[in-house]
């Protein structure tokens, strides 16, 4: 591909060359014409001078009729080889003396007193000059000389040729140097245009270096680039937002599908969970029906039924709470209360189960009063859930610790046990609905599956976080709840802790 760079430069060069050649050509023609005429005149004049000298020298010879002396005079011309022939004619055309083999006068020339003049015959010039002595015309001298106009013109033309070549070279050099001023701005525009085409980068601009027409072009080009850039950008951003929207839609669809799947799963587990206690209840009823008289057995059956019922009630209550939270219908009744009160209330709730499984409970609370702005009932529900979990997932006779601590901004409550722990891969999912650590254990212990989900929702409603930690299966678990602390001075009168809302 032929670059535009070469094209505009070579065009300018061509213009300069053609102009120079035309101008020099005209000058050369004029010079040659002038020179050939001037040369002819100069040669004729110079030869005429010689003719007049010869004539004057020969005048006495003519006067005293001495052709020999005249011949001797003419013969002196031999020192100049260009003189081919010379002759002196009397005014009546009679030959008086001559020099050279040939006739000096041309074939058609008048010999009888033609005056001063010259004629050119091919490569020779014949000049004739009148010989005058006093008032008398004595004769005419003819000189025939070589006339090297051709050679002269050849020399002249070769010099002109050299001048032409030198002028062209000089013109080329000068134009190469000067055309930069014209081509540079245009080339800059072309360069940027090419880059824009190649890179699709409309932020490029041409630097404006002149205020002439090219400057106007540069301004217009830059303005056009800006306009195109703006439009391309608008198009691109609308494309991007379309892409983003479709991506979001895809993600939303995916999430919906996932939620749907989870809901199905949830429904299956829920049905299973609701179904589980029914078998023991039916068995207990059967026992009561058949052996109602046996007080010991009936008592045991009744206790089992109570336990199962309590389990179901808790499950359904939790589900209701989760449902309320997710539908946004749960309103927290916030008040500033001491943390210790909430913790104790939770322990009171969980105490029967802990005692039933013969666990040792250690409680560590900060000595100072630490206030939190919470719904005390709901927060106690969170802690009691965690305590129940700890009690359930720890072999009987284990140890459970409740540790409260506080710094300037935040309150931390850690509930730790030395129970079955959580496998590392399960840590991330324990807060999901019906994520049970061990299905087999659940059956025995009467698992919840909803409790941790509820706990997380409630803590987050309070602006806090909950975190599960475990060093692995069989190495105990630790749940850490962090809540924002409020200044103790702002504490209102403590209210009595509500109890029995859960469990």
């Amino acid at each position, binding site marked *: 591909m032929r670059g535009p760079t070469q094209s505009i430069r070579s065009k300018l060069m061509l213009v300069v060359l053609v102009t120079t050649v035309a101008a020099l050509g005209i000058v050369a023609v004029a010079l040659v014409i002038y020179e050939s005429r001037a040369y*002819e*005149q100069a040669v*004729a*004049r110079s030869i*005429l001078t010689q003719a007049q000298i010869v004539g*004057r*020298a020969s*005048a*006495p*010879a*003519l*006067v*005293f*009729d*001495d052709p020999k*002396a005249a011949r001797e005079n003419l013969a002196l011309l031999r020192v100049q080889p260009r003189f081919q022939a010379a002759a002196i004619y*009397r*005014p*009546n055309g*009679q030959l008086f003396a001559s020099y050279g083999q040939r006739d000096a006068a*041309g074939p*058609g*020339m*008048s010999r*009888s007193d*033609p005056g*001063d*003049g*010259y*004629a*050119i*015959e091919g490569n020779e010039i*014949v*000049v*004739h000059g009148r010989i005058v*002595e*006093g*008032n*008398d015309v*004595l004769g005419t001298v003819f000189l025939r000389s070589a006339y090297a106009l051709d050679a002269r013109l050849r020399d002249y033309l070769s010099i002109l040729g050299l001048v032409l070549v030198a002028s062209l070279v000089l013109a080329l050099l000068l134009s190469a140097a000067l055309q930069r001023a014209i081509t540079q701005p245009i080339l800059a525009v072309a360069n940027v245009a090419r880059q824009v085409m190649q890179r699709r980068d409309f932020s490029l601009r041409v630097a404006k270096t002149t205020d002439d027409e090219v400057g106007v072009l540069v301004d217009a080009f830059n303005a056009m680039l800006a306009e195109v850039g703006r439009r391309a950008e608008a198009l691109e951003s609308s494309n991007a937002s379309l892409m983003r929207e479709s991506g979001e839609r895809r993600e939303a669809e995916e999430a919906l599908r996932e939620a749907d799947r989870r809901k199905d799963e949830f429904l299956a587990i829920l049905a299973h969970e609701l179904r589980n206690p029914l078998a023991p209840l039916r068995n207990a009823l059967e026992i009561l029906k058949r052996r109602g008289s046996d007080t010991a057995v009936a008592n045991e059956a009744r206790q089992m039924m109570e336990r199962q019922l309590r389990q179901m009630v808790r499950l359904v209550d939790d589900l209701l709470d989760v449902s309320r939270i997710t539908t946004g219908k749960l309103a927290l009744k916030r008040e500033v209360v001491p943390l210790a009160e909430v913790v104790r209330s939770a322990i009171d709730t969980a105490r029967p189960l802990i005692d039933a499984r013969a666990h040792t409970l250690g409680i560590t609370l900060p000595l100072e009063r630490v206030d939190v702005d919470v719904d005390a009932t709901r927060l106690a529900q969170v802690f009691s859930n965690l305590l129940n979990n700890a009690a359930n997932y720890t072999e009987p006779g284990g140890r459970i610790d409740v540790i409260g601590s506080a710094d300037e901004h935040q309150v931390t409550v850690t509930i730790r046990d030395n129970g079955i722990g959580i496998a590392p891969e399960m840590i991330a999912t324990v807060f999901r609905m019906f994520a049970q650590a061990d299905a087999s254990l659940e059956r025995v212990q009467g698992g919840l599956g909803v409790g941790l989900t509820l706990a997380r929702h409630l803590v987050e409603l309070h602006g806090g976080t909950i975190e599960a930690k475990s060093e692995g299966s069989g190495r105990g678990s630790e749940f850490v709840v962090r809540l924002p602390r409020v200044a103790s001075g702002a504490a209102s009168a403590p209210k009595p802790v509500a109890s029995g809302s859960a469990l």
Partner: protein
Amino acid sequence: MLTRTSTQPALRRVVEVSLLACLTACMLVIGAWSTPAPLGDGGASPSATSVKAAFVYRFLAFVEWPEQAFASADAPMVIGVLGADALAHELEEVVANRRIDERAIEVRRVDVAHALDGVNVLYVGEQASSALTGLAARAARASVLVVSDFADALDEGSVINLLVVDNRVRFEVSLEAATRSALRLSSRLLGVAYRVRAP
């Protein structure tokens, strides 16, 4: 500016023919008026006397006289002719209406007694050759150009002596006599002299 002569053959021929016609016509008219033909214009074998007369006239242009030789700036150039009546006649015709250095030219036939009275040039013919010896010294003092026409005239004190060589009129010059006469002869004249006698 020099004019270049046309060498175009046809035109040249026409010009040539018409020029020739004109020339012929002119010659006829001139012949009819019987005007003496100027020297060297190709008249049919001019006589030796007329050539000599022309020579005498032509010498004037190549000789320079001292100032005191003439009474005034417009005094005529007087040529005295001694012992050569035929030549005097020819000479009168030659110099008619001619001037030399703005001077009129006068031809006088003189005798020996008054040969040098008021003349600038004295022509001594062969008939008066014996008189030359007596005149030469005075002529030299008066700066008179002595032109003679007989053998050995230079020995007698003549400045220019005419002679005929191979049927052509020639002349010899004595520079000694010229110097004695306080006359200056042009070197161009000497160039065509048959003989120059140097001092």
